[in-house]
């Protein structure tokens, strides 16, 4: 298995007027070559912060420590200029909200051309050709019209396709898709997801797909990582996750998916998402866990491989 991206012990703190928010509490995950890796969790669990840490586009009040190795190189040690070269060309990102991700005062073509020319010394003509073929790739008919349109003239779905085309423009080896379909209509969601998978097969890049929707994960991902309050609590191949969820949180998540027979009772998870300013000690899930033991309050469990490619971070499975 060729490891494209390897995150180890990633801690991210934010300095806020109200105190230090410890958003990421030691994130560990790998993304393999050519796979679609899903990151699932509730709002606020740190999924987006993880992805922004990879590209190092966090706001000024963020403090990062740990390791992020991409294609054998440590990203956290790179200079700003080196990162700039990577952004958009080796690793690119598709954001959640296509409505606000494009500058409303510039034509689509101009923004895309600038992205291309920021990384390749090509003329505007050439860049335009590259872009037009990409727009065709993302199934946008009439690329020349799109290129000379302003963002507000396109629909949400079309804009997201434009974002995907932009993400592809420099043939990156990793695309981070941060909730790419959350802001779209259900029918459009389907199309965009299919598109991503199609392109992935065609171009062979890895995908880090961030979402809160287990349904999306089930349909598109090869492996999944579950995040809770800044921790990665479980990582597994997709079938194993659904057939044999190990972490109590994962189990709770899966149990609230309604059964089509309508017979299963939905048991909600008690408690609420912890404050990141004053997070719980030890395992951050412990206040809500049915299987709580003393050790859970004191020690944060380590992510261990319990069976083949199935990792859990929980004292139930020997998390020391």
């Amino acid at each position, binding site marked *: 298995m060729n490891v494209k991206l390897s995150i180890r012990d990633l801690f991210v703190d934010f300095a806020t007027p109200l105190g230090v928010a410890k958003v990421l509490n030691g994130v560990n995950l790998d993304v393999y070559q050519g796979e679609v890796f899903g990151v699932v969790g509730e709002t606020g669990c740190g999924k987006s912060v993880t992805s922004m840490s990879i*590209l190092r*586009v966090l706001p*000024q009040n963020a403090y990062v420590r740990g390791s992020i190795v991409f294609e054998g190189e440590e990203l956290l040690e790179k200079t700003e200029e080196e*990162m*700039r*070269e*990577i*952004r*958009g*060309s080796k690793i*690119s*990102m598709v*954001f959640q*909200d296509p409505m*606000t*991700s*494009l*500058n*409303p*005062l*510039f034509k689509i073509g101009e*923004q895309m051309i*600038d*992205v291309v020319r*920021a*990384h390749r010394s090509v003329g505007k003509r050439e860049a335009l050709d590259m872009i037009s073929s990409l727009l065709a790739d993302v199934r946008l008919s009439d690329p020349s019209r799109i290129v000379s349109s*302003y963002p*507000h003239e396109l629909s949400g779905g079309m804009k997201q396709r434009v*974002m995907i085309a*932009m993400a592809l423009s420099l043939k990156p080896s990793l695309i981070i898709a941060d909730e790419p379909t959350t802001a779209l209509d259900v029918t459009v969601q389907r199309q965009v997801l299919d598109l991503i998978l199609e392109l992935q097969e065609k171009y062979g890049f890895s995908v880090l797909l961030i979402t809160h929707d287990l349904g999306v994960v089930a349909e598109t991902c090869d492996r999944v990582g579950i995040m809770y309050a800044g921790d990665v609590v479980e990582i597994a191949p997709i079938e194993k996750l659904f057939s044999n969820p190990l972490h109590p949180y994962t189990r709770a998540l899966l149990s609230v998916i309604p059964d089509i027979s309508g017979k299963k009772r939905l048991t909600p998870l008690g408690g609420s998402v912890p404050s990141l300013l004053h997070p719980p000690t030890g395992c951050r899930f412990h206040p809500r866990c049915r299987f709580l033991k003393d050790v859970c309050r004191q020690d944060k469990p380590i992510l261990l491989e319990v069976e083949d490619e199935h990792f859990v971070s929980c004292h139930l499975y020997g998390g020391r």
Partner: protein
Amino acid sequence: MRFWEYVAYRLILAVVVVFGVVTIVFVTSRIVPSDPAALWVGSHPTVEAIKKARIELHLNEPLWKQYAYYIGALVKGDLGVSIRTHNSVASDLRTAFSATFELIVVAEAIAILIGVPLGVVSAVRKDSWVDNLSRILAVSGVSLPAFWFGIILQLIFFRYLGILPLSDRVGTIVLLQHPLKVLTGFYLLDSLLTGNFAVFWDALKHIILPAFTLSVYPIGLITRQVRSMMVEVLQENYVRTVRAYGLPERQIYYKYALKNAITPALISVGLSFAYTLVGAFLVELVFNWPGLGRYAANAILSMDYPAISGVTIVVATTYVFVNLVVDLIQVHLDPRIVL
């Protein structure tokens, strides 16, 4: 409606407003406590002369008729005759206008050239020492009494350093030695166009201090506006996108972010124009600059109501139309605004 229809609509509105302005000016000129006829005649007014003046100035007729005469004259471009100089106010203003205009243009240019980059840098390096320094400067600029600051600059550069002249537009000696052919009324432009570098250099030296004094307020305004808008824009998702795609910093800030932030900055340029216009009055007094301000100040001192009214109308009208232009540019620049 389309853009040009909107322009027409705004133009008509502007004319209506100017009408209102003229009316107010007329009203204030008629509530004058002293007798305009007596003032008109000047020193040693005889009863005869006053009577004659009253007829000439239509002062015996009912108010609404006077108003009608006034409007009628205005439409023909007649702003009355100055009590002080006894020239037509319109011709007095014509010569003064270009002097003031040159001053204002240079001042606004300085303000934009300094204010915009300062605002951008301030926003990009928010809360750093650069930011704090520029914020202090900006607040000071907006609070500074221009007439006082001009004096300070004169003290420093003329009195103690001796490198810049005290007042006027151009040195009389230089002008005598190298007579200037006046084309546009703007000395800097005219001297360049006619290759008269001696005058150009001298005029430049003369305009620096008053223009800089005048620019301090708009610098403050523009810096604050640009900074505040840039700070907001920099938090927007579309800036996050271009940053995540590795665009060079300069392009992110000066092309992408600035364009979104510039519209309110434009508004503040328009706003600052108003202050600059009136500030010019005060600065011209300090630097003895032969423009509208000095003319108005002299008019005020000698209670020359036609002149005061004339200046007011010209200035207010200019203000109305500058604001109109700023508005229209703003509408034009933003492709989202649907008329």
